[in-house]
């Protein structure tokens, strides 16, 4: 085969702004999401949630509920196998404690699932829910992260059958400690800063609520049609908790209306399937918006402490990082999110002494889960705030201070090896790093110096200020995540690309088709993409950890190369050439001035000579997780009379290696940044004194609309990552990590007050201004 294909850099499809392959069907409303099909005899599934934050269930009486006309099943924990599991859709064995039952035997937060009903109509289902009598023994709850760890605090997981909880008696659901030390702690530092930070509860707010439909096919196999990011983990976990064989389950992932991590949890599928098993009927469970807020998953709030030492010349000597991750009632992603707050931040700063102390903590509040940024968001808020504080204390420009410290190409970090995701990591050296270019081009596009100059002269109650933040993330989980793809040639020269990779609205179907098209010398129009269906597509861990482009992309590239080899062989015969002379371009095989259409190649293989199916299959797992890098720049105004913060302008630059599709890469970053801005300024789940969420609607939990969004711009900084498909790294998560620290730094620049607990609401900012000495 042509040796150039794998490493080519003059692209015809990759790195082009190809239109997203499902865009037009989505814009026409014809693309089908989970709930966009009609199923005859579909029952409505509804869940009864606990009204108490912490209560033991003495007895549940479902007799009256079962009598409601139209009700076909009422289930409680007593009706289901008692299988402790985690809802976190991660590689097996999951590094989260097995502390959850499909329907709880004890209420651990307001919104915990107690019972489930299937009925002919929504009205009957609701009536049945109202007739379930639960005898609760109310227990004292604990809502504060730090209080929950204290001796004598209510023990939330006092059951004896949960597994992998490191210290249930102190409500600790995950712990990790790590230290590398080159000298005595803080002995070389000229300045030491010791600061605590606290981040807030937030929700993903995918516009499509979680929804699952389960039914038996004609052969009696259970079909789960669901809005999931992890179809294969969903199959495995559902099989396990309902004690049915994996081979009896088929998971279909249709179009997904966004996930951002929330749909990396296997939440609805087991309970919906249990209702189908009980009724032998199709059942749908669709969460309401309120249920999505309360009873799906959230971004873990963190309490963080950074104690850092720095020399006057700008070298960071010591980095002591302590994090307390509030996991709510169950331990989903407790170890991994907590660790990622350190593993994605500490390597960037290259301190000689580094220490990480991490605890994830149970409280009687909604459950934390995977959320875009995955701990790095919380970690970078603290770190990038601290960077500005350190720079100020040693009298160095904050940007110069950053340039001096950040990791560079060719450098490694002991943290990479020490901290993986839930287990030991792997050693790696940074092979591609565009941080300097990110900073240079970002500053130029933003007009950093000009704005600084202009802001020197200010008067009046509204003051402007600038802030920046620099970031990294990962690209998949090395030596853990695996993806596979198959590509099958049709007689018209088109291809079916089947992959487990899960497009949840990100555009990965398009990006992966571009990779295959580049290898095969065709356009994406000749690729029919199917993702994902556990009966039809090969395995993939799913869409999380910024892994799809990097890991699934490599699998697709290999599968396409595999198909290409076979095409070249056939074409060589047709063109009377050596395989090494054959190239594929413009939908043709070309050799020595002769060419034939790919359809002729396929026809030949199907019908004329040495008949066979041309088909490539491959899988990929990575031995590195090359970080993308980013630099963010913000200008804000702060109204010193009201505390109102307005973002005036925002520029973010991101090095994602080769952008396989620049338009989609920009779109990923735009979306991440806006979510970050909204998270920085207004998003926060609020709770009543008894632990009930009090703002569980979009009217009360504000997310930015077009009117709220400030002007902002994404700039892609090209680098080439040798381990990535055609030089690509990840792009989807990193952007969300920047706005909180960049805005906190800008507020400080504007008015000289530093906020350590987002969101930066007017009320909070004014309070800080008034407290200013």
């Amino acid at each position, binding site marked *: 085969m042509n040796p150039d294909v794998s490493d080519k850099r003059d692209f015809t499809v990759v790195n082009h702004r190809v239109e997203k392959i*499902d865009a037009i069907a989505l814009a026409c409303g014809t693309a089908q999401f989970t709930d966009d099909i009609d199923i005859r005899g579909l029952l409505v599934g509804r869940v009864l949630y606990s009204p108490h934050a912490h209560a033991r269930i003495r007895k549940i009486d479902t007799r009256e509920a079962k009598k409601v006309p139209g009700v076909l099943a009422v289930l409680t924990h007593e009706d289901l196998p008692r299988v402790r599991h985690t809802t976190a859709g991660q590689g097996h064995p999951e590094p989260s404690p097995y502390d959850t039952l499909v329907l709880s035997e004890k209420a651990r937060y307001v919104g915990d699932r107690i019972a489930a009903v299937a009925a002919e109509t929504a009205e009957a289902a609701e009536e049945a829910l109202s007739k379930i009598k639960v005898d609760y023994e109310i227990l004292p709850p604990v809502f504060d992260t730090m209080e929950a760890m204290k001796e004598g605090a209510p023990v939330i997981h006092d059951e004896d059958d949960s597994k992998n909880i490191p210290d249930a008696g102190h409500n600790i659901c995950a712990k990790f400690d790590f230290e590398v030390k080159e000298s005595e702690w803080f002995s070389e530092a000229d300045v030491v800063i010791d600061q605590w930070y606290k981040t807030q509860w937030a929700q993903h707010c995918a516009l499509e609520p979680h929804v699952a439909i389960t039914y038996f096919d004609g052969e009696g196999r259970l079909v789960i049609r669901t809005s999931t990011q992890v179809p294969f983990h969903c199959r495995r976990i559902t099989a396990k908790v309902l004690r049915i064989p994996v081979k009896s389950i088929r998971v279909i992932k249709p179009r997904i209306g966004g996930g951002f991590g929330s749909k990396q949890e296997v939440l609805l599928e087991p309970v919906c399937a249990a209702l189908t098993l009980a009724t032998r009927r199709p059942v749908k469970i669709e969460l309401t918006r309120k249920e999505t807020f309360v009873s799906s998953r959230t971004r873990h709030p963190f309490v963080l402490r950074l104690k850092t030492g720095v020399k006057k010349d700008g070298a960071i000597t010591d980095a002591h990082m302590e994090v307390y991750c509030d996991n709510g009632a169950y331990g989903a992603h407790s170890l991994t999110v907590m660790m990622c707050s350190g593993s994605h931040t500490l390597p960037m700063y290259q301190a000689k002494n580094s220490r990480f102390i991490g605890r994830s903590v149970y409280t009687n509040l909604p459950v934390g889960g995977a959320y875009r940024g995955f701990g790095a968001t919380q970690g970078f808020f603290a770190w990038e705030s601290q960077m500005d504080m350190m720079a100020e204390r040693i009298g160095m420009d904050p940007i110069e201070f950053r340039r001096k410290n950040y990791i560079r190409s060719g450098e490694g970090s002991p943290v990479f090896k020490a901290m993986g995701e839930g287990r030991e990591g792997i050693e790696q050296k940074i092979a591609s790093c565009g941080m300097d270019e990110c900073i240079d081009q970002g500053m130029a596009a933003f007009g950093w110096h000009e704005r600084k100059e202009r802001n020197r002269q200010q008067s009046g109650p509204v003051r402007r200020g600038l802030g920046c933040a620099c970031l990294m993330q990962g690209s998949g989980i090395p030596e853990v995540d695996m993806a596979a793809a198959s590509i099958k040639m049709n007689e018209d020269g088109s291809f079916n690309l089947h992959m487990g990779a899960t497009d949840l609205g990100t555009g990965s179907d398009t990006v992966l088709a571009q990779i295959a098209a580049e290898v095969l010398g065709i356009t994406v129009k000749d690729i029919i993409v199917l993702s994902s269906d556990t009966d039809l597509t090969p395995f993939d861990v799913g869409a999380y950890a910024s892994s799809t482009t990097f890991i699934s992309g490599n699998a697709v590239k290999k599968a396409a190369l595999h198909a290409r080899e076979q095409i070249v062989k056939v074409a060589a015969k047709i063109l009377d050439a050596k395989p090494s002379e054959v190239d594929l371009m413009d939908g043709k095989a070309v050799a020595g001035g002769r060419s034939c259409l790919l359809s002729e190649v396929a026809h030949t293989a199907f019908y004329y000579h040495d008949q066979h199916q041309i088909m490539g299959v491959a899988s990929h797992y990575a031995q590195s997780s090359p970080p993308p890098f980013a630099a963010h720049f913000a200008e804000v105004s702060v109204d010193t009379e009201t505390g109102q913060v307005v973002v005036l302008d925002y520029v973010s630059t991101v090095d994602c290696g080769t952008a396989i599709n620049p338009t989609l890469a920009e779109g990923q970053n735009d979306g991440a940044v806006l979510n970050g801005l909204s998270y920085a300024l207004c998003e926060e789940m609020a709770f009543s004194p008894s632990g009930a969420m009090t703002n569980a609607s*979009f009217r009360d939990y504000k997310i930015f609309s077009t009117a709220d969004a400030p002007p902002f711009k994404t700039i892609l900084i090209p680098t080439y990552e040798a381990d990535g498909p055609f030089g690509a790294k990840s792009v989807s998560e990193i952007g969300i990590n920047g706005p909180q620290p960049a805005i906190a730094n800008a507020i400080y620049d504007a008015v000289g007050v530093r906020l350590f607990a987002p969101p930066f609401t007017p009320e909070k900012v004014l309070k800080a201004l008034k407290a200013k000495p």
Partner: protein
Amino acid sequence: MTTKTRGRGTLKSVNGKFDITVNINGKDKPLQVSAGEYLLDALRREGYKGAKRGCDNGDCGTCTILLDGKPALSCMMFAAQAHGRKVVTIEGLGAPDRPHPIQSAFAEAGAVQCGFCIPGMVLAAKALLDENPDPDEAQARRALDGNLCRCTGYVKQIEAVLLAAKKLQTTGKGGKR
């Protein structure tokens, strides 16, 4: 009460159902709807799946339709309220083989990520462009501020609305329907 010769009169339920007629995408369509059924539910039941359910509380805009040419939240209206009125759903604008210029503009501008909010947003854009064929960016932002999106940051969606305006001006395919 006397029967009105003009107007939409009175609807009475028979066995909990109302017989109504709604002009959907240019055609009068008789529908039987339940008491208290919302227009979104009735439309989806009738196969207009492009209208999405994001919150059932009038807060997200994914259920947006055009009602007598103006954007409306179909989750906040009883289906019976649409009796005798003109409804346009996303299916009434175009289909993948013959998309409306606004739909093409959204695809071309890269404005579609997960796409769950897009039908509502396209219809909000249609209402804007019918009223104001040449909006500036601020007007486009304001017209779309009831349609939430969590994927895109809205950057390319605003570009799409402005691109759609250009397309409609050159093709002349605008106008009310």
